[in-house]
């Protein structure tokens, strides 16, 4: 229909992808029985631990939920700015982006 074309030119964005993403995230939270504030605290704790070893960009940290048939995965994605040299524990050489993946059943 011409209406569809008009909408395309008017910059109409489909909303179903957003709905699906929001649902998948919510369902994982429902099933794990964790709420938003728990996830925020978890995120805070992870930042604290990672910050002990790496200089990271706190604002760029992303928390995502991936859901497959059997497992759900919490994916933390953070750019690493540099490795802290003054830690007693040896850390592997790394630079750039690194994934921290936590699996939960």
């Amino acid at each position, binding site marked *: *229909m*011409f209406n*569809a*074309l008009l*909408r395309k030119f008017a910059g*109409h964005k*489909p*909303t*179903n*992808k957003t*709905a*699906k993403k*929001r*649902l*998948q995230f*919510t*369902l994982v939270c*429902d*099933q794990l029985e964790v709420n938003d504030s728990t996830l925020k605290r978890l995120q805070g704790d992870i930042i604290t631990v990672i910050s002990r070893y790496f200089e990271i960009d706190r604002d760029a940290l992303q928390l995502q939920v991936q859901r497959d*048939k059997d497992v759900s995965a919490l994916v933390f994605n953070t750019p690493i700015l540099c490795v802290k040299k003054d830690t007693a524990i040896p850390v592997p050489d790394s630079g750039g982006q690194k994934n921290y993946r936590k699996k939960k059943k």
Partner: protein
Amino acid sequence: MEGRIIVVTSGKGGVGKTTATASIGAALAMEGKRVAVIDMDIGLRNLDVVMGLENRIVFNIVDVVKGQCKLSQAAIRDRRIENLFLIPASQSDNKDVLTPAGVERVGKQLRQEYDYVLMDSPAGIERGFENSVVSADDAVVICTPDVSSVRDADRVIGLLYARSITPKLVVNRIVSEMVARGDMLSHEDVIDVLSVPLLGLVPMDQQVVISSNVGLPLVMQNDSAAGQAFRRIARRLNGESDLPIQVPSHKKGMWGMITSKFGRK
């Protein structure tokens, strides 16, 4: 042979459980099966008005469970469709008047007398839901393609799995125009999120309101797209599991036909 008890449930209210129960029940009876549909929404009964049998109620499911009447006394025979019976809910009692143990006892008797027994579950996941699923062999979960309904369906599906029932999904009120323009979750999206087997897809249809206005069975109307969808669902439930699922579609305008020819949406 013993009959099967099928619970129709959704978690969320207002997604079409009662319409689905009435329609699937009527369609199964039209396939030649002996069917009872039972309204388990104690205190808020509605299956009777949707089926147009509200004037013939004498006894109800609470009377049956309490042993105050015989099962056959509470079952109202539908005069338009042979072998279709309604056991209404009580309107004056409260949901807690029934116990799962009591319903299970009646369930055994129901299996002896009917080929299919459809339990129309109330919204929610409390006692009313438990009463409806306690004797169920199968479950049909109804959901609409919106976030609140899908979320509640997921919760109910989890509860059914905990009772070792693998539910079958019906996606109701699909507006194919909205799906085509990306403003409604498609049935693929819903299945992807819920990961349960699909039983059928029902389009949004004004006939649902019209036939409930007059208390006529939706499935008897050949011009009702939803009614026809429910008939296919009943056939799939009744052993024709290889009957293909029809995806609701809309009439495309001239431009839609041209663009779809070129593989565009």
